[in-house]
């Protein structure tokens, strides 16, 4: 009885020792050296694995950061400048500061602005729809409204607005990884600089058709009239293929172009409500049409309604 217990204990112990020796030898023989910095860098990175940096995941980006000498071209859009700075401190390398960007949708063709003329019955995918035809409306440059960008967003920063049929970008959540830009078959999502208060002015249209055709297809299309181009004091606006484009680097956010645009295709976001022009006191008694921006004001900054009233009362 005791003999069998001793045998089994001895057998198992010796087996354990043999296995331990084999494992030790193998781990020494096949040891792969890995820079411990890689793991450290990976821990700093946001671990979103969004591929916004160009590498397939955070681990491979960390490897790239450690192995390359000059990392000033590399940038993690999700972590931003803070993360890049701490990585630079850790690695003792230089990084350049980059302005944060945010995705914007260059199309305002909501259902009531851009009437549907056809219907797509195929699968719910922009890419497949784009393969078959130019879209359900007469504008062949605008949003297809099937939500490929929303599916591509890993950060829950986009949703489809059912009333307008357009995707909405939640600026606070957007990490500017660029997945939506890749996913959009119409190339209507652009990365634009994001300043502190998230003030932006951009042409919300990609329609390159001539004015009349563009206007017929969509009420808020850029008709290429060049009014904004003429008024811009900083030459930030370029006209190409019947379409205006505002260079965000040159733009000083003076909003002159927003006022002159006859189709309201220039979008301004998060600006404080405008002061009422003194015109109303001069033309007293006459009924003045409200400023042409009414639609935008109603939709975006509701607060403007109150000051207007109090002004009139006074």
């Amino acid at each position, binding site marked *: 009885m005791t003999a069998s217990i001793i045998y089994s204990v001895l057998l198992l112990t010796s087996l354990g020792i043999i296995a331990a020796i084999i494992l030790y030898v193998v781990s020494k023989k096949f040891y792969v050296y890995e820079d411990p910095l890689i793991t450290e860098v990976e821990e700093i990175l946001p671990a979103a694995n969004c591929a916004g940096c160009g590498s397939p995941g955070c681990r491979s980006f960390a490897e790239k950061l450690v192995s390359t000498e000059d990392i000033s071209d590399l940038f993690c859009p999700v972590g931003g400048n803070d993360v890049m700075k701490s990585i630079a401190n850790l690695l003792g390398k230089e990084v350049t500061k980059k302005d944060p960007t945010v995705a914007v949708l260059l199309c305002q063709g909501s259902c009531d602005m851009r009437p549907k003329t056809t219907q797509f019955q195929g*699968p719910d*995918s922009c890419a*497949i729809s784009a*393969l078959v035809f*130019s879209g359900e409306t007469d504008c062949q440059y605008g949003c297809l409204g099937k939500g490929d960008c929303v599916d591509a967003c890993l950060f829950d920063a986009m949703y489809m607005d059912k009333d307008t049929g357009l995707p909405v970008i939640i600026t606070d959540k957007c990490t500017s990884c660029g997945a939506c830009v890749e996913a959009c078959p119409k190339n209507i999502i652009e990365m634009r600089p994001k300043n502190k208060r998230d003030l932006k002015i951009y042409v919300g249209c990609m329609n390159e058709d001539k004015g009349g055709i563009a206007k017929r297809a969509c009420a808020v299309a850029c008709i290429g009239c060049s009014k904004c181009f003429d008024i811009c004091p900083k030459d930030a606006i370029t006209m190409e293929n019947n379409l205006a484009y505002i260079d965000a680097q040159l733009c000083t956010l003076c909003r002159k172009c927003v006022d002159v645009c006859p189709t309201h295709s220039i979008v301004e976001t998060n600006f404080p409500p405008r002061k009422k022009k003194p015109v109303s006191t001069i033309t007293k008694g006459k009924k003045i049409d409200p400023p042409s921006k009414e639609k935008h004001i109603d939709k975006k900054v509701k607060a403007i309604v109150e000051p207007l009233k109090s002004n009139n009362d006074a």
Partner: protein
Amino acid sequence: MLKTFPKGGIHPHENKITASKPIKRLNPPKVVYVPISQHIGIPSEIIVERKEKVTIGQIIAKSGGYVSSNIHSPVAGTVTKLDKFFDSSGYKKQCIVIRTDQKDQSNFEFIDKPLKTDIQLSKKDILQLITDYGIVGLGGATFPSHVKLNIKKDKHIDCLIINGVECEPYLTADHRLMLEKAEEILVGIEILMFALHIDKAIIGIENNKKNAIANFKELTKNNDKIKVAALEIKYPQGSEKQLVRALLKREVPKNGLPLDVGVIVHNVGTIFAIYEAVQYNKPLTERVVTVTGKTIKDPSNFWVKIGTPVIDLINEVGGLPEDTRKILNGGPMMGKAIKNTDVPVAKGTSGILVISEEEAERKKCTNCIRCSECVFVCPMGLEPYLLMNLTEKKMYEAALNEDITTCIECGSCSYVCPSHRPLLDYIRFGKSIIKTLEIAKDKK
């Protein structure tokens, strides 16, 4: 026992309601919209200007490269616009708009010329005429014919196949052409056989066109070079690869051409266009179009000038029915819905099919039940359910290994799927992605 291809295939309702209607000739349309990319390959280059007067058959857009084709004015008139309009691709494409001069009698030229049987030109001249007169494959693929006929010396061709199958439901354009212009088509075949030094030709016709088969058999009674073969009624027999397999039992290699097995396939419409180009110097400016649909009052076959807006043809058959939901350019299986009724007829338009609200309804897609119906019917021996899943999951390389690129897009899988899954939509999408990926790879 009739000949056919062994693998897959379906038999949709034929609905050939216009089979007994002779091809009518229409008055020249008031305005034609001639797209500059009516063929596979590089778009042509416009060589006319605004307000320029053009005569019928004048070159208005020059071939843009080797795989490209000349485009000729289908009418005599004035160029009014050079602008972008919706064409059958669903996108706005560059078009030449010509207002027809209604008084110009030359618009009625080239019509019903007497049969001319003797071939006077040399081989080189014939091929040159086919290149110059913008002949493209009229079966639907619109591949420039001169490219197909320019055979490299190391290839040996021993058989010419004439595709008169017309397996698409509803369409009868080729059928009527074979009945009305049979002798001309035979001369066209002789011309091609002479130009390519081939001494064997087979006309393949599906057995639902018995009168066309009898007609050709009668005419070729004393001709042992040209044979007529009746084929079983099965879709997609009109596809090149399936037709070669059915008639000669030769398997075209994957991603290869019929040329690789010593065969050249041409549609009957193309043969007739070649006949007219060679014997009467007529450029490709018109074609037979079937305008049909269950709700259409008077469905018919027409000789249509290239560039005629679809609405003109629909007005000709009794107007657009009220419950119309979809208008297809082509047949119900491979045709593509058009964006609006101003879309012009192009070289590849073999039919205009009007579909009512009821027929157009696409049923709700449900889960795959693994019945493998799609695998049974695929004429290329693919697994459509798998290809769709791989494309949906973005596994393009795996899809490429499953030979997604050999798909001929016949739509049999989507037709039979009991779960109404959009199989072909996804396969087509996967093919396009793989194509762009390969182009990107080549550039690198």
